[in-house]
């Protein structure tokens, strides 16, 4: 995760505040909840999506019997339907995976800053690893709608874990899939393909080791989406604070997307 142990010259240890918020709390109805792989699911939610104003944002879901909400990145949002893709990693996502069409969920929407597509140039590169792939979808869609030539690298451990390859192709992106074990696509990591690619800018989301590798491999500016354990998800508790070059930030509020030049890695 981002560093909080180095850093000098900080004038304030309180966040560089994001002033506006579009957060909304409302009840969504599950339209569909299907398995894409053995432990990755796609949930379609119908409801008031007006607070979702950018790709790269997340929602925070209240689940019966669990105290804290569960933050999940937004994969897509169109016509009042919110698409979430999540991996079963604990009690919360396990509970989500057991839910079916017609069931209701209390969701906070419009959380986080999202990706800035204005900096992409004409040929942006998108790199998603595992469940870091979903937020790349809505971003890809937006960039293509803006007339950009988008290349996407999707990284997985093995063939059985792959999802959404065809969906990205259908958007019109140039898609390369990598698998660590070589069971499908290019054998290796997303950065192995990144090294051979020409791109004007990059956007990435995935596990921390991947983000660090992308940071080191990249030859342009870019944006990273981070993950952290959160208390509230809307900036009240300071549970997910991190230090950046430009000051203290809350992953949930001033993030989860950070620009490359802001990032301070933990040594």
């Amino acid at each position, binding site marked *: 995760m981002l560093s909080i142990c180095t850093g000098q010259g900080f004038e304030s*240890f309180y966040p560089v505040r994001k002033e506006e*918020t579009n957060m909304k709390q409302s009840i969504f109805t599950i339209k569909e909840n299907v398995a894409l792989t053995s432990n990755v699911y796609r949930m379609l939610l119908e409801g008031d999506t007006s607070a979702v104003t950018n790709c790269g944002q997340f929602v925070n879901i209240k689940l019966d019997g669990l105290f804290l909400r569960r933050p999940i990145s937004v994969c897509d949002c169109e016509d009042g339907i919110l698409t979430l893709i999540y991996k079963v990693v604990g009690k919360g996502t396990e509970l989500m995976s057991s839910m079916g069409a017609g069931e209701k969920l209390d969701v906070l929407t419009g959380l986080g800053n999202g990706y800035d597509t204005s900096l992409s140039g004409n040929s942006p590169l998108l790199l998603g690893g595992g469940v870091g792939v979903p937020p790349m979808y809505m971003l890809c869609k937006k960039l293509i709608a803006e007339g950009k030539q988008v290349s996407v690298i999707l990284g997985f451990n093995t063939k059985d874990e792959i999802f959404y390859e065809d969906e990205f192709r259908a958007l019109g992106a140039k898609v390369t899939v990598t698998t660590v074990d070589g069971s499908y696509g290019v054998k290796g990591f997303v950065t192995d393909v990144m090294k051979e690619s020409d791109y004007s800018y990059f956007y990435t989301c995935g596990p921390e080791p991947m983000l660090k590798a992308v940071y080191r491999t990249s030859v342009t500016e870019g944006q990273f989406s981070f993950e952290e*354990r959160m208390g509230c998800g809307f900036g*009240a508790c300071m549970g997910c604070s991190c230090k950046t070059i430009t000051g203290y930030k809350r992953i949930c509020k001033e993030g989860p997307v950070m620009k490359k030049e802001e990032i301070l890695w933990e040594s």
Partner: protein
Amino acid sequence: MGKLSVDLCGLELDNPVIPASGTFGFGYEFAELYDINMLGTFSFKGTTKEARFGNPTPRIAETPNGMINAVGLQNPGVERVISEELPKLAKCFDKKVMANVSGFSVEEYVYTCEKLDKCPQVGWIEVNISCPNVHGGGMAFGTTPEGAAEVTRAVKAVTTKPIIIKLSPNVTDIVAIAKACEAAGADGISLINTLLGMRIDIRTRKPVIANKMGGFSGSAIFPVAVRMVYQVSHAVSIPVVGMGGVSSAEDVIEMLMAGAVAVEVGAANLVDPYACKNIIEDLPRVMEKYRIESLRDLKIQ
């Protein structure tokens, strides 16, 4: 005087509901969602003499019916709270706010309280004595009657506003500590701060929180809070603010019946940003249901 109003150390509150420190920032995140002037008041983010960036992450863990946090008093320091946060707060909150102060030496408490006491926006100063005393071998001030009294006396000597001492529940005899604060001149007592807790991820065999231990809060701790509020409020004659796991209008009534004059709501704000608004709006219904005319002197039978 409204039906929901109560008195806290001589200042009237429109209702007894107070978002607790550390769960409400300096108010803005919530002011964007609803008019926070409907609150009784709120206790702002724990403020120290110097800026603090707090503990490493992860700082949060979940528990059955609650959570553990080890944020570590992240705050910009008292100077910036006064020069930046309070002026911004003035734009969305017309009422007196409760200043929450922490310190790691008696001198720090004195410094911070003296500064905040001069701010017209501040109505009360809530002094968190759960912090370790760097000059006292790291033992928290609030764990001994002597330590608690020492901070109380020192802070009282430099302030004019009501001083409310916020007690830690992680002690052998909370009543003795409350009495020591009263004898040292405290105007009120608030309790309980979080219980010390810990979770371990059995997959990674590591503590969930980077700091290993943290403050346990949420509805799971409500019965402990009610018990301690009851014990303390029946042992001192100064007002007691009850908190710990309050998440509904019924919980507020129960806390008042335990002997509190007002109630703080903490972790519930993090799960539902509208928690305090909903509780305040639900209070009249619950009062009617239980034929309660006033929230003042709502003692158990």
